[in-house]
């Protein structure tokens, strides 16, 4: 599944370099996928805490931890959720560990090793501004 890089300068915000962003479906949210940055240096997959509430993810028994994200000290609560990505012709879903964090001052959700990268073989061309995600078998 191939995805084009994305930036927000098209919306008149800044002059950002296009980055590898994938739209990820979070189980319980059936109206929109979430623009998510592929971050090969991140250990885990992190999302905004408020998304868990909207999707109905139960965080009551989740492990809670504090960590730093891009200079922001956040509190994350872990949960197992269903994630999915797809194109017009293909779709793939998997069970993932996700940290739902607050505060969340970022534009995109973050796809790291645990929860995303371990599930795919990623090919990326920053020059041509695309990345390809092939599910691991």
């Amino acid at each position, binding site marked *: 599944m191939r*995805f*084009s*890089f*994305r*930036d*927000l*300068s*098209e*919306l*008149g*915000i*800044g*002059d*950002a*370099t*296009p*980055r590898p*962003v994938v*739209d990820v479906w979070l189980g319980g*949210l*059936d*109206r*929109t*996928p*979430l*623009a998510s*940055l592929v*971050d090969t*240096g*991140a*250990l885990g997959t*992190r999302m*905004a805490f*408020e*998304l868990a*509430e*909207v999707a109905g993810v139960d965080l009551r028994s989740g492990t809670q931890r504090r*960590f*730093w*994200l*891009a*200079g*922001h000290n956040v509190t994350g609560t872990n949960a197992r959720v269903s994630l999915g990505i797809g194109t017009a012709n293909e779709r793939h879903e998997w069970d993932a560990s996700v940290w739902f964090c607050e505060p*969340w*001052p*970022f*534009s*995109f959700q*973050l796809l790291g090793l645990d929860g995303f990268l371990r599930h795919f073989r990623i090919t990326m061309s920053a020059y041509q*501004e695309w990345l390809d995600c092939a599910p691991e078998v």
Partner: protein
Amino acid sequence: MLVPEGQLWQLTARHLSGAAILDTTRASGTRRSSSRTSLRTTGSLRGIVGAWVATVDGEVIVAADSAREVVVWLKEHDRVADSMFRLPLSEQATEGAAPA
């Protein structure tokens, strides 16, 4: 949740039409020719910095202060978006301080 006027750096005021703005501000943008995924709005983004937005075919269709409001709007209008994200709060955010 909206940032003060003084922090609305680099935003370009443009004309609004189309996007549903679920707060007291206005929204928008223009389209730039590019091979990458193109995003645009038809109004000004001034004042909705930090807002959650949903897009269809690269165009913002709704903006609100919370993700919940965006999702509720999509349900009420029986719409399915291509993507949802949050507009940056700062220049640092758009330039990509990559979280660890």
